[in-house]
């Protein structure tokens, strides 16, 4: 007998964080039938995330590869694993109360959240296009369900269906692209593609380029880059608000993780890609910001704002090189902090009866809930990129890296764009501080412990990382050096 196990380097220890999440999800699905114990689902999910986080920390600084080169567990992957767990945990804390108020609190939600997070981890850790695709699907299928989770709401149903159809469409592009790449390279393994790149590029140029282009479109859908962004506003507006918060951060970070792996590590030598990324970055920033100006709904505004933030990160990808790429990872973490914080406030406000997150509903918030509106202002300042928040530090790093590498026009367009964005972020602050609303129109908000926890974490992250960005930047650099 051949010793398949050692020949194929099957090493379960690479997958411990993923397995922890899967086990937690399975336990929740089983206990869902057990009446009272089903109420423990959020607690079980928290335990699953915590265990997974600890197991991820264990993997830091100890790069390993396994499963015939399909899995690479380097610092880059571990960094993203930790980010995904943080995003999902914060989402969970935001979601608890909201789902109870809306009467859709069901244990399956937490299982779906766990499995979706597991899919993201699979994506970030894969160096094989097939595994990447499977990870993407494991991430996306729960997202479709989560978007339509409020079955009593027509908007939520519409959101789920739209996301499902567009997502399936994007997956078809991605799969076709992978098939072309496989046709050109005779393998889906990125390491082997890198090793044979010159041979593939000279002999099967057309198929390789067609494949890479289609793969770019497929991932472009997931990170909501313009012109593949059309699904974003409706899906974000219709989905339950905590799910929207998750959409705007989690799948986006996972999409960027695989884009870094595929385009920066795998197909780095295709010169055309820089041009393609340049156009994508400019379009994504500009279109996202300009459309956000006209929104009357805070969720839709944040949807377009999340598009424009993807544009800033694309700037870092366009520039390339270790310095710039580490700023991309830095910005992803920073963006997670203040964007989730903003969404936590919006979610809290939406638990009031009859609220749909229109701008008008924010009026007079400073009077009824001064602390909450101060926090909202902080997150909006961070989104707009004001010092001393981490939003400023992140943008400063990205644009200065772009200027250093000689991409001056791109940096100028980026800075101009963040000036435009100031208008709609400040509008939130203006409405909550200076606009009046007739007394007693909306009940004042009660802050529950779970959402208070989220607000504290994100506020501390937004300010703390703004003052002391060094440690996070070092971690991002270590992550980038791990795969370059």
């Amino acid at each position, binding site marked *: 007998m051949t010793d398949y196990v050692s020949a194929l380097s099957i090493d379960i220890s690479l997958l411990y964080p993923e397995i922890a999440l899967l086990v937690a999800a399975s336990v929740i699905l089983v206990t869902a039938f057990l009446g009272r114990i089903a109420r423990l689902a959020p607690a079980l999910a928290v335990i699953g995330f915590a265990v997974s986080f600890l197991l991820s920390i264990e993997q830091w600084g100890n790069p390993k590869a396994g499963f015939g080169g399909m899995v690479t567990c380097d610092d880059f992957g571990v960094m993203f694993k930790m980010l995904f767990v943080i995003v999902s945990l914060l989402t969970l804390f935001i979601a608890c109360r909201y789902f109870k108020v809306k009467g859709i609190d069901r244990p399956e939600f937490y299982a779906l959240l766990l499995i979706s997070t597991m899919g993201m981890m699979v994506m970030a850790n894969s160096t094989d296009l097939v595994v990447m695709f*499977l990870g993407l699907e494991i991430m996306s299928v729960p997202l479709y369900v989560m978007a339509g989770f409020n*079955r*009593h709401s*027509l908007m939520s149903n519409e959101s789920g269906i739209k996301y499902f159809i567009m997502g399936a469409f994007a997956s078809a592009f991605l799969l076709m692209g992978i098939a072309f790449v496989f046709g050109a390279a005779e393998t889906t393994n990125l390491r082997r593609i890198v090793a044979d790149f010159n041979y593939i590029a000279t002999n099967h140029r057309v198929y390789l380029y067609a494949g890479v282009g289609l793969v770019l479109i497929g991932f472009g859908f997931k990170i909501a880059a313009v012109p593949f962004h059309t699904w974003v506003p409706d899906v974000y507006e219709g989905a339950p608000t905590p799910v929207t918060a998750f959409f705007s951060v989690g799948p986006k970070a996972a999409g960027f993780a695989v884009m870094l792996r595929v385009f920066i590590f795998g197909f780095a030598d295709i010169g055309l890609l820089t041009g393609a990324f340049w156009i994508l970055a400019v379009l994504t920033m500009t279109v996202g910001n300009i459309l956000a100006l006209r929104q009357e709904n805070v969720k839709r505004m944040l949807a377009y704002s999340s598009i424009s933030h993807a544009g800033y990160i694309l700037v870092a990808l366009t520039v390339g090189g270790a310095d710039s790429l580490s700023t991309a990872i830095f910005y992803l973490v920073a963006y997670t902090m203040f964007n989730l914080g903003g969404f936590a406030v919006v979610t809290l406000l939406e638990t009031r009866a009859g609220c749909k997150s229109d701008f008008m509903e924010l009026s007079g918030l400073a009077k009824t809930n001064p602390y909450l509106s101060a926090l909202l202002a902080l997150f909006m300042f961070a989104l707009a990129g004001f010092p001393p928040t981490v939003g400023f530090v992140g943008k400063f790093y990205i644009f200065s890296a772009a200027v250093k590498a000689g991409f001056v026009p791109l940096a100028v367009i980026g800075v101009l764009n963040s000036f435009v964005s100031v208008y709609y972020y400040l509008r939130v602050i203006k409405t909550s501080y200076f606009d009046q609303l007739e007394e007693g129109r909306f009940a004042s908000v009660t802050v529950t412990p779970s959402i208070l926890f989220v607000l504290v974490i994100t506020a501390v992250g937004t300010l703390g990382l703004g003052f002391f960005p060094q440690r996070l930047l070092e971690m991002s650099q270590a992550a980038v050096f791990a795969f370059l």
Partner: protein
Amino acid sequence: MSIDTVIFFISAVVAVFGATMMITQRNPVASVLYFIVSLLAQAVCYVQLGALFVGAMLVIVYAGAIMVLFLFVIMLLNLRGTEDLGASTGRVSRFTKYLVSILLIAELVFVIKSVFIPATTTGIMSMPADEFGNVAPVSKLLFTRYLYPFELTGVLLLVAIVGAVVLAKIDRGDKKRVTDELEESAGQATDGTAG
């Protein structure tokens, strides 16, 4: 004439017959049933070629799963044989149909000419490599080199099932709430036109 050849011709004739009947039936249920007959006959051809795995998959996946799904959809949509499906009306669609048919026939002739005519020595049904299309080589790859993607596919199927149940399961009070909202939005729509 060996028994193999006899079986091949019987199954080949049945496959073509089933396919022809499938596209000429007006009743969609009968159409689906004829398609299943055709698929089963094709599976026999695959088995004769030594591609046991492909044959079994054809029966299990296509005939067993996908066609049953079709049947369910047809029955749920309540399509009857008497209804005109509107497929053969309109000049443009007829022109397109003929164009596509001619192209397909031309392609078929071209492929047969280029592939089979020079290779007469190997015969119509040449046997490929020993283990080709068998369960063993497929499963060997599936459980060794592609173990990780294989297991991930299992997770994907699990989450798809859970998701479908979450969205489709009816809780008490569901119906009322959805109709309420439908009425509400209908009311809003009429308000909008009035104003």
